[in-house]
């Protein structure tokens, strides 16, 4: 178990002292999150990033070419757009001279992009940064198996008819079974667990029942529906149009019929048969992209920007990959410690919903004396987080989790909620496959 608390226990660490330059969030936007429906979705990842970024940049007082850089998080860029940030920047009309680079920290790639922007602003390298995240998981590739790859390599190397005939004889139909790229990505390479199995670990550890998970998932759907109906997502969501003229105006994974009763009917997906985590109480596999514009004080002055908020603090943390869902606890707690804040001193929380069990586990961990002492190095428990402040417009269980985009979405959505509620501060926190957590403290200007 890691102890991120080590470095903060003795007061404010040095690197925090350097974090005095304010980092402004000028504006942000995202695509609707489109559920993957077992086939390639209507938009590629760069289509998504371009559509959202183009609309966001259009409403700024500066021209796209005035950006200092574009940073895009993407967990699974397709083979033809590996540096997808550059593809998106050029497609959005930023011109040849704006550098662009892609970052990858699995489920927090979109938060990593923001953090990279912060670092470069702090270092004085950049003043105006477009940072975001994107993934088109529906377009994750099907791969040849190792056996098939080897067979093909021999086939191409074969020179004579005899060699080829021998290879044909060796061919097995099973070679043709594709490896689903997405399943590889969702399996931890160190501990060999599917992400959903790490959530089962947490459910076991904290005694979270199937009913609690399904109730949480149903609430997520209900909250997204309410947010959609009242237009609370309209400002952040940029409509998409496909080439047939079909409009994609809203997140489409949310369901009216996702009630606890209906969710209870689903079979466990990860630990088959006797597990508790189902497709219904997990985040959805989805396509989407999100961006924010980050600016230094100087850039704000120079372009006469009206920032919507600031990123006050950020933290990454590591933990046991088999318990990766608790990442938000390990990342957010040091920020609270540094800022001298309790869980409920914040006006809102966006805690990415990878799994219902995982979100509930985070709440349990903070409210657990032993966990806080042994795992976080605190004197005692942090206490209970007011669920009225948590994911008030629902989360990834209903919206979907386009891996690279989610980290940016929750930062942006904290701002949306603060503006709406008149609140001042909020936290965006996310768990990360591989045993990491990320968190950002956002303040409304």
């Amino acid at each position, binding site marked *: 178990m890691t102890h991120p608390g080590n470095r903060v226990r003795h007061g404010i660490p040095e690197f925090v002292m350097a974090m005095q330059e304010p980092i402004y969030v000028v504006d942000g936007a995202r695509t609707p999150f489109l559920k993957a429906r077992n086939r390639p979705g209507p938009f590629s990842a760069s289509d998504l990033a371009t559509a959202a970024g183009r*609309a966001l940049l*259009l409403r700024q007082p500066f021209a796209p070419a005035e950006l200092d850089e574009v940073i895009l998080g993407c967990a699974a860029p397709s083979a033809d757009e590996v540096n997808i940030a550059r593809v998106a920047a050029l497609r959005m*009309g930023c011109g040849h001279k704006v550098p662009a680079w892609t970052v990858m920290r699995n489920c927090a790639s979109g938060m990593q992009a923001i953090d990279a922007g912060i670092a470069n602003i702090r270092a004085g390298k950049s003043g105006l940064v477009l940072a975001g995240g994107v993934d088109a998981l529906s377009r994750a590739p099907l791969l040849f198996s190792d056996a098939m790859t080897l067979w093909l390599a021999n086939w191409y190397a074969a020179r004579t008819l005899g060699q080829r005939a021998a290879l044909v004889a060796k061919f097995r139909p099973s070679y043709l079974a594709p490896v689903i790229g997405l399943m590889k990505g969702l399996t931890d390479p160190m501990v060999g667990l599917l992400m959903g199995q790490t959530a089962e670990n947490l459910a076991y550890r904290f005694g979270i029942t199937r009913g609690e998970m399904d109730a949480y998932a149903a609430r997520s759907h209900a909250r997204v529906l309410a947010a959609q109906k009242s237009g609370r997502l309209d400002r952040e969501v940029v409509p998409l149009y496909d080439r047939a*003229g079909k*409009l994609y105006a809203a997140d489409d994974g949310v369901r009216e019929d996702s009630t606890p009763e209906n969710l209870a009917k689903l079979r466990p997906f990860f630990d088959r048969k006797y597990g508790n985590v189902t497709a219904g109480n997990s985040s959805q596999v989805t396509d989407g992209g999100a961006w924010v514009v980050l600016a230094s004080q100087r850039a704000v002055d120079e372009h006469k920007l009206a920032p919507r908020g600031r990123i006050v603090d950020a933290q990454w943390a590591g933990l046991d990959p088999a318990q990766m869902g608790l990442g938000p606890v390990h990342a957010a707690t040091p920020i609270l410690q540094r800022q001298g804040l309790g869980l409920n001193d914040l006006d809102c929380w966006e805690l990415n919903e990878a799994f219902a069990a995982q979100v509930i586990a985070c709440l349990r961990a903070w409210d657990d004396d032993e966990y806080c002492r042994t795992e976080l190095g605190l004197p005692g428990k942090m206490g209970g987080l007011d669920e009225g402040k948590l994911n008030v417009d629902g989360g990834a269980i209903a919206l979907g989790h386009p891996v690279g985009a989610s980290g940016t979405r929750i930062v942006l959505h904290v701002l949306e909620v603060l503006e709406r509620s008149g609140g001042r501060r909020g936290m965006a926190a996310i768990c990360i496959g591989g045993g990491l957590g990320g968190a950002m403290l956002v303040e409304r200007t």
Partner: protein
Amino acid sequence: MGHWTITREGDGLATLTLDRADAGTNTLSAEVLRELGEALDLLERDPPRGLIVRSGKANGFVAGADIDEFGRLDSEADAIALVKRGWDAFERLAAVRYPTLALIRGFCLGGGLELALACRYRVAVDEPGTRLGLPEVMLGIVPGWGGIKRLPRLAGAPAALDMMLTGKTIDAKRAKRMGVVDEAVPPRIMENTARGVLKALPAPRKLPFTLALTLNPLVRRVIAAQARKQVARRARRQHYPAPYAILDLFAKHDGDALAPPPSDPASIATLLRTPTAGNLVRVFRLQERLKSLGKEGAFQPNHVHVIGAGTMGGDIAAWCALRGLTVTLQDQDAARLAPAMGRAAKLFKDRLRDERRVRDALDRLAPDVAGDGVARADVIVEAIFENVEAKRALFAAVERRAKPSAILATNTSSIPLEEIAGALADPTRLCGIHFFNPVARMMLVEVVVGARTRPEIAAAAAAFVRSIDKLPLPVKSAPGFLVNRILAPYMAAAFRAVDEGIAPETVDEAALAFGMPMGPIELADTVGLDIAVAVGRMLGGGGDPPRRLLELANAGHVGKKSGRGFYTWTSGKPAKQAPGAVPPGLADRLVAPFVAEAQAALAEGIVGDADLVDAGAIFGTGFAPFRGGPLHYAAARDGKAADPAPRAVV
């Protein structure tokens, strides 16, 4: 030699460069062709190992013959001499003992392509500006300098005839696939390729068996007969003799335009006996003139904002994006933008084909419900429904957000500009930019100059129209401007003829026989009878509105879009009966009001001069191009213009 330069290289190759001393574009005047002969004389004395023929102009290879020389043809003998000098020059080039290669970059048209075809090899530079074609037919003449002879040998008869009969141009890749060029390469290796080919001297590509067969004398006649049927569907021989002559020359004379005797319908003499060639050259000149109207001033728009995503607004936005501008398209909500985005994607796919270019065009077209593009745009085009209060409110709001330098334009066809301009703090900023439906096909755009419109705004609007590859026609703000105004009485006459009991098919046939590209009744169905009624009302004209038109429109049978109008439409095509015998004088009954209204518009100064009236009629209404425009036609008919030659047009 002032136009050609011979450069000899150490490796034995020589380059023959055409760089017309007296013009910005390479064309093949008599002098240029004479000098080509001199150059070949010089090369003959000391034959190079190989010869590269290329252009010294950055804008292209060779645009074709010198059209100015057509205008100066005073006699049949002159015309025959013109054909003969090009034919002989290229026959000689084709026969030289050393290998020759044309290095083609940019346009390579008409005589330019015939020059390249006379070389043994051709290398085309694969970039967007490279276009090869034999568009002579569009000027009412034939590719008489060897095009009809040589192109089929390279591409086979079907593809070659298609190019020659339609005048369509092809790009480098297509030319390579068709066999017209030996290589299509990027600019970075064009020199290496040209030299490499001349050193390796590959065997010329052989036509595949089936295509080689199309050159057999008997098969030629069969193919020509089939092609003649297709041509007949689009153009009548008495109106457009050139495509028929091309087929005859291909079938019977192996492309030698000098071979048929003067009495032959395919002879040069016959082509010149009709005014078609002269009038089509006139049309070409008119087009050049309209293009030049967009060249005044230094306005270079980058961003266009279009408000209103209906048929017109959406298609205007798509067209601008297709032509490389950044476009924002605004409407009240996202759902209204969706059909326009779909149509745009289809347009880009049809026109650009290449997936990356389609993607880029789509990326340039941003849906913009919030209207954020207003603040960025250089040109703002309003294309909302025809309601003066809505337009006034819109422009008042737009003016507050727009850049001070932005042009504010309305696409209205029926509301006086002045009524809208009154809502602006600066009414001198407003002009009309009036597109026609379908936007992608109609070349003409009326630039409407209101009573208070500043001249530099009108000039900038014309420059914008030119920048999207349309033809700007400045018109005074008056009901119907030019095009709708001159079209309306002609349409009304057609509706009245139907009301009198003449079948719509017969009315249309009368117009087709006159040379209109589409009959007026079918045109009304295509545009929409609701619109025909509205335009008729706006332009008044007195008298009762056409009865049948009103009946149909009131019953909701508005034409193509509703599936029924004067005709019944199925899958975009009208079900037409065979036309009856056209009553004598019917064509004149239709055309006379057209001509009269054109004369009235000229008298009222709606456009600058008679040629612009004719240009508007041809490019805006499709008025029979081979007749040179309504005013030109009327003057020729009345014997006032003895000389239908294009000299009158400058």
